[in-house]
């Protein structure tokens, strides 16, 4: 029997108390394209980080074999030496260096102590031909398109003599044509005997190029199948297949009148010109929680950030609030109109960690508690106490620095800040990411309380259960557009995934 190119046995990995992977078995045959599928957070990236040596041996359980030999990587260098090369979603190229320099970075050809440029250029040219890239090795990487950069990454892997290539969402930022070209090249590489592990949310691509597919769910292997023996329906069912647990406090609501209307909303990334949000239309009703589901990179965060004015003037389209057309070109405009955005990654975008609870709470509405530019301390303290009590924030004092709080309490401080602006529309981007179940439940309760007071809530979530459990209606985004819209009663995880992966398109709208 031929031994596998890569074999992982009983892999387990813990982060603190969270079990990210448990008894994962993963086996890749030589010379195949093996797809790895799973929801956001299923453990794909963690597994690949183990393969790449980023998590050194000893920090996880289980065994890892390359070509039948037991390996214990101490770092990424060991993994590279074993012939494994990983190409991340975020490209790891030095933009200000030439293609040639990038290809051989860290493995330069040398003559004595000097770089052997002649040999480098010759080799670079050969490798670039191999990946079908018609550029000069002396071109700067910053001048290349994203698709070309992606190919340079592959060239880099070939230069390292990698036998196993791991591609993590390589087509996420590419146009369809670029993506097709990339897939062709991956196929060619396979035909030359290289082994590829392919991670993608685009199921179509998985079916197009992979020989076998392994599905991960909740940090466990579900199954490994030949790709021709499975169809998209089955694949999606296996990716999500679990029951909805009852931690979602649902209250029955009557749908009110439309409050917040977005028409023909399009946003181009000013740097790449790519349409990150493409002609989005939706209506948010009084007293409604509208969920936005979708896979990473579907343009959900870009949509809400641009609605909030964080993208400035690069937006196209119309926003109406209570029938009035809004002109929003800055965050301040949005706040004044009654829109609030609890952004994802509270530590990076939400809080000033060096400031205390009180100062963070009042940050967006400090004018309300000031006279002639001077902050009224008494008003500030009472305002802060009000929200600490209402949202049940647990802290020693309102003078506690927010950097010292737990994730759940930090998120509540961010919520306080936005509630103090008295929003009519509250946008939440991944509001419960990284916080424990108890705090999650409290945040859902707060959302329901707000909705009862007449606030409209727009919630982005990558957790399908959460979207299903909390929202009254669900929009599903796929590649910058709205692919589907479902009432929660008609929704299921499978259906959402079908829209999110582009398997079902907007014309099948179920309403």
């Amino acid at each position: 029997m031929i031994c596998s190119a890569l074999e992982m046995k009983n892999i387990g990995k813990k982060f603190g108390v969270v079990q990210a992977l448990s008894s994962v078995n993963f086996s890749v045959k030589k010379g195949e394209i093996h797809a790895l599928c799973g929801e956001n957070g299923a453990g794909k990236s963690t597994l690949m980080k183990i393969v790449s040596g980023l998590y050194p041996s000893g920090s996880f359980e289980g065994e890892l074999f390359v070509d039948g030999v037991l390996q214990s990587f101490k770092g990424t260098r060991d993994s590279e030496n074993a012939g494994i090369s990983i190409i991340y979603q975020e490209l790891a190229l030095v933009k200000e260096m030439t293609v040639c320099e990038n290809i051989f970075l860290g493995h330069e050809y040398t003559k004595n102590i000097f770089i052997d440029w002649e040999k480098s250029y010759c080799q670079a040219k050969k490798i670039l031909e191999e990946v079908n890239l018609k550029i000069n090795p002396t071109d700067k990487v910053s001048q290349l398109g994203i698709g070309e950069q992606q190919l340079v990454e592959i060239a880099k892997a070939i230069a390292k003599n990698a036998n196993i290539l791991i591609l993590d969402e390589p087509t996420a930022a590419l146009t369809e044509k670029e993506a097709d070209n990339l897939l062709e090249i991956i196929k060619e590489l396979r035909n030359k005997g290289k082994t590829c592990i392919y991670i993608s949310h685009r199921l179509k691509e998985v079916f197009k190029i992979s020989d076998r597919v392994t599905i991960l769910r909740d940090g466990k292997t579900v199954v490994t199948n030949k790709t021709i023996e499975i169809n998209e329906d089955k694949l999606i069912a296996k990716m999500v297949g679990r029951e909805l647990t009852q931690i979602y406090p649902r209250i029955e609501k009557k749908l009110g009148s439309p409050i917040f209307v977005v028409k023909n909303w399009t946003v181009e990334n000013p740097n790449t010109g790519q349409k990150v949000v493409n002609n989005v239309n939706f209506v948010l009703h009084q007293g409604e929680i509208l969920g936005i589901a979708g896979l990473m990179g579907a343009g959900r965060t870009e949509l809400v950030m641009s609605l909030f004015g964080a993208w400035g003037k690069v937006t196209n389209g119309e926003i109406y609030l209570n029938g009035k057309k809004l002109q929003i070109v800055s965050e301040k405009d949005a706040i004044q109109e009654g829109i609030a955005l609890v952004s994802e990654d509270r530590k990076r975008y939400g809080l000033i960690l060096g400031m205390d609870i009180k100062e963070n709470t009042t940050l967006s509405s400090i004018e309300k508690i000031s006279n002639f530019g001077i902050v009224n301390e008494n008003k500030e303290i009472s305002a802060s106490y009000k929200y600490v009590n209402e949202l049940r924030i647990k802290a020693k004092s309102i003078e506690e620095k927010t950097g010292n709080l737990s994730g759940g309490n930090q998120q509540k401080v961010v919520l306080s800040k936005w509630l103090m602006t008295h929003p009519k529309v509250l946008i939440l981007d991944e509001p419960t990411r990284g916080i424990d179940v108890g705090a999650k439940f409290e945040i859902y309760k707060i959302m329901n309380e707000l909705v009862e007071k007449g606030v409209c809530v727009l919630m982005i979530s990558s957790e399908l259960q959460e979207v299903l459990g909390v929202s009254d209606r669900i929009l599903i985004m796929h590649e910058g557009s709205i692919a589907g819209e479902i009432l929660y009663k008609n929704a299921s995880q499978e259906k959402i995934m079908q829209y999110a992966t582009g398997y079902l398109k907007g014309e099948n709208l179920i309403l």
Partner: protein
Amino acid sequence: MNLLKQSSVENLNSDLKKSEFWEIILFSFKKNIRQYTMLIALFVIWLVFTFLTGSLFLSPRNLSNLFLQSSTVGVLAIGMTMILVAGHLDLSVGSVAGFIGAAAAILQVNYNWPAVPTILTALALGALIGVWQGYWVAYRKIPAFIVTLASMIAFRGAILGITDGRTIGPMSDSFKLIGQGYLPSIIFSQVTQIDSSGKIVLDELGNPVLGFTSLFSNSFTIGEQPPFNDLTILLSFICISAFIMMRIKKRNARIKYGFTVLPKSLEFVSIVLFSISIAAFFLVMAFYMGIPYAVLLVFILGIIFHIVTNNTIFGRHLYAMGGNLEAAKLSGINIKKRTLSVFILMGTLAAVAGIILTARLNAATTSAGQNFELDAISAAIIGGTSTMGGVGTIFGAIIGALVMASLDNGMSLMNIEVTWQYIVKGSILLLAVWVDIATRKKNE
């Protein structure tokens, strides 16, 4: 809420056991370690110089000089702290201060402008330079480091250009007052000795003999200065009472809101210590010539900008921008406007420093203000301001400026070579930052 109240009530209890008492002292010490370390550092530096100079360092005359010397860097350090807190840097303040000082001198000497319009024009010029720098940083997104480095070089040239490379002076008497004058005394007035025929008495060198008369008796006493400056003493009483009243008011407010406060005994000790320091600061000058106008100006600017940074929306926004720019922007703060404003303030403060400097030297020189930016940055950093933004106090900056001036002054008194003065100042800066980082790590 209950939880919040309880913990503070415990700390309110003034009948503390001895061990608890020390625990609280230790706790509050740790909490304010930055402020204490720099005060301690200043104290140690003074102690060392007093010992090394045979107490010459601590004489009222020298201390008064020291405060006067620190005034220019003190003003710059106030602005620099705000710039650093906002997450920027200003390398141009020395050149700008020198340039504005030279411009003021030209207005005075070449065009015979009176003091007040000269000063107003200089301040406006400073604000304008701030607009220029702020525009490039805020609206054209060029890092402040580069914008102000460019200005630093350019204004150094501009000084040479407007002065033709010459020293320009002297200034008018009223202008000089800003840098050389002292708060007048009410009881005593300085006069020249007049003999019975009404003629001014001259000494052997031909200068008039100086002395003073008292409000209550017409007797003339020969001597350069009155025994004490009553207005300065009065000012010290006002400041101390205001300080004590504010502390008590703040304490009561904190108790009302259930915040933790120091136990009564400790609060008392703290108030007494601070009052003594304030009194000492004023009395030293009261028994020399009175408080210099320049020092008074720094004192007032310090109070104003302490309030600006702590109690205004503007101040809050500065800390938020420096603490987390992305979050500040998403909270609706107009980053561009705030950045522009802080640079305008810095430009204006650089003008103030330039005016004080020119008035003190009674002339504008081509090298005026050279390296002041480095002293101002060092002062701010020694005073606990973070180069990463978001952290820093005006009080700290002024203490930092005093540390820098004390090093200069003390080493000059000891006749230490300039070579070593620079080396020592550099080393102290490095040491201060290392202590800062080391203590912060421990606290975390």
